[in-house]
């Protein structure tokens, strides 16, 4: 298996009236073909920014450094035309709130026609609709929804439509940014099951961005844990959950409340602000295993153990 997506030393900084915000710092991550990678972190840790950086969807006040290689191509060096070609065709993205992601003035049908024509102008509307119907059937949306406006659809239907829009060209990678956070637990499970089955059918990889550790455990092959704009720990899902190495991952897993929880645990303190420069390990103030070196020197991620685990911590 070859690397489909390679991020190397990727950093994203936003210029804001309060000063620079280092949303993503020095992130390196690889996604192999045909896998689901979970990118997990708490709100404001930079995970959504990372997802957008891959598609170059960041607002104008963002600067990106490092490199993004997708199927061997340097994404950051592509011309606007080339990146546009890539989006939706090879690299697709779905978002958190399906309610606001479809143009309220356009029928569902027109979203499909527009997307197909954007990449293949020669296609007639009739053909485009046939294609749309096929994809919609794959995501289990009745084809009469094509004639409706977004506001006439339920939240689950809208997210299915969003997914269908992504599937039109059988992309190699789907970035799913909190795709189920706005949905209820049963719908959430439905949508993720759907994603999982489609993934195999369309031989597609998924980058699943979420704050929900349960989802990651259930659906991902590999997982990257993000904290304060950096990746704290990354590895294959089962060993990482069985034996977390980074103190943050340990704390996070301990603080999960599930049906087996008998005692509560929370990580002390609060996540740091990403405003301005920081030195040392960002988790330092909250860490129960901190050492003197942690305050001043950032621990470069290194491979630890036999399961190809990358951990950014001075303990290892």
């Amino acid at each position, binding site marked *: 298996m070859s690397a489909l997506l390679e991020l190397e030393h990727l950093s994203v900084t936003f210029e804001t009236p309060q000063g620079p915000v280092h949303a993503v710092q020095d992130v390196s991550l690889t996604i192999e073909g045909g896998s689901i990678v979970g990118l997990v972190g708490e709100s404001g840790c930079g995970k959504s920014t990372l997802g957008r950086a891959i598609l170059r969807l960041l607002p104008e006040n963002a600067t990106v450094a490092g490199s993004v290689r997708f199927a061997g191509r340097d994404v950051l060096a592509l011309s606007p035309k080339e990146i546009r070609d890539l989006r939706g065709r090879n690299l697709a993205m779905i978002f958190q709130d399906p309610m606001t992601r479809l143009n309220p003035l356009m029928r569902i049908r027109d979203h499909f026609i527009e997307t197909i024509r954007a990449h293949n102008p020669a296609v007639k509307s009739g053909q485009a609709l046939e294609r749309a119907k096929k994809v919609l059937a794959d995501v289990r949306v009745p084809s009469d929804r094509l004639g409706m406006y977004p506001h006439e659809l339920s939240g689950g239907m809208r997210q299915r439509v969003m997914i269908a829009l992504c599937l039109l060209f059988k992309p190699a990678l789907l970035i799913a940014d909190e795709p189920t956070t706005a949905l209820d637990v049963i719908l959430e499970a439905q949508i993720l099951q759907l994603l999982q089955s489609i993934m195999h059918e369309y031989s597609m990889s998924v980058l699943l961005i979420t704050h929900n550790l349960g989802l990651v455990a259930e659906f991902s092959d590999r997982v990257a844990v993000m904290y304060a704009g950096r990746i704290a720990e990354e590895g294959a899902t089962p060993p990482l959950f069985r034996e977390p190495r980074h103190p943050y991952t340990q704390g996070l897993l301990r603080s*999960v409340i599930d*049906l087996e929880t008998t005692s509560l645990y929370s990580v002390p303190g609060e996540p740091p602000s990403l405003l301005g420069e920081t030195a040392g390990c960002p988790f330092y103030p909250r860490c129960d295993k901190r050492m003197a070196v942690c305050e001043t020197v950032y621990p470069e991620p290194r491979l630890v153990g036999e399961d190809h685990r990358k951990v950014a911590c001075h303990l290892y």
Partner: protein
Amino acid sequence: MTEPLLEVRDLKVYFPVFSGFVQRLLGGGDARVHAVDGVTFSIAEGEVFGLVGESGCGKSTIAKTLVGLVRATSGRLLFRGEDVTRPDPKTLFRLRERIQLIYQDAHAALSPAMTVGEAIADVLRTHGLPGPSGNRVQTKSEDAIREAVYRTFDDVGLRPPAFYYNKYPDELSGGQKQRVVAARVLALRPQLIVADEPVAMLDMSVRARMLEFLMELKAKYHLTYLFITHDLATAKFMCDRIGIMYLGRIVEMGRASTIYADPKHPYTKALLEAIPIPDPERKTKKILPRGEVPNAVWPPAGCRFHPRCPAVLASCGWEGRDVIALLEERWLSPELAEREALAGPVKEWEADGLIARRQMGKTDPGPVYDLIRRILLESGGPMAGAVRKVSIEGTVVVVEFRPPDLLVPKEAEGRVVECLLY
């Protein structure tokens, strides 16, 4: 048994749907959201009672009804035996000293234009200071009020209180704001606290802290909680008893330990099944209910869960629109869609209560009649069993269901469950 602190009997809360002026004139104007549709439960003093359900199931509406933010359409609310269903302003004012609300978003619950000290002082100015024997002492003395605010801050761990008094909400951290909101509620010395999704907005790593804090307060002030959440895991940890809600009704209610150990209602089972478990070694293929929660304006007949229920019976409430849903469902498969194209399109079908019909106009209704009979038969199962008859009336093909069996909450193995299976 002692008298419960709070009793809710057959509570119904309907909201009008804002349809256009003319639509209301032309009929169809009695459209109402059946937010809460006949809910009965009680909470004993010192208990934590959980209402669990997905968004839109009516749990937050119950919370708002309890503190008089929303009027009950019918039913009864009793607080310590006193009827507070439609309180006059004075009763409501007193009621709000005894029942208080904690919101899911502490930041949004504080006015950004008011210092947090003022936020609490304002409450004390309105209600007076809590006296030694549960009474209220009205005071004009700003010093006394400030003293009382300081004490409350101290109680919730905002120390030194004088430091926090003049802070605006946006100058405090999330955790501190939660403490302020708690302090504001506690300043009234309430007996029942309704906590509406108190941890839903919080990050996983700090969620437990809020829950611990709530438990501490409970012990310290002898509080009773109505704990509202969509998260079954949190509810399991926090609650003594729970009620599972679906579309405005409690479908299963009992001791938390009993229900989690052995859920009875298919919906409860589905919810428990759907929760993602943070243990990659226990990946199992889940069997999930179909579809989504239907619109609460027209809740399904019979058991509201019947269109999605994996254990559904013929008597659960099949009705006209389920035929349309069945057709849609079948036609997701292209070959079925082609084979059964004659019966479609779906929008030609019209549902009216227990009846589904299709106006055929000049076309011969015969083939459609045959086809729909075959489809119903082929789909088999409980739905087919509920069909009273398929007929042709003039140019109309009609599918008619028999009325559902009466659905009443029943005692079953230590809990109340509303399901025909039991």
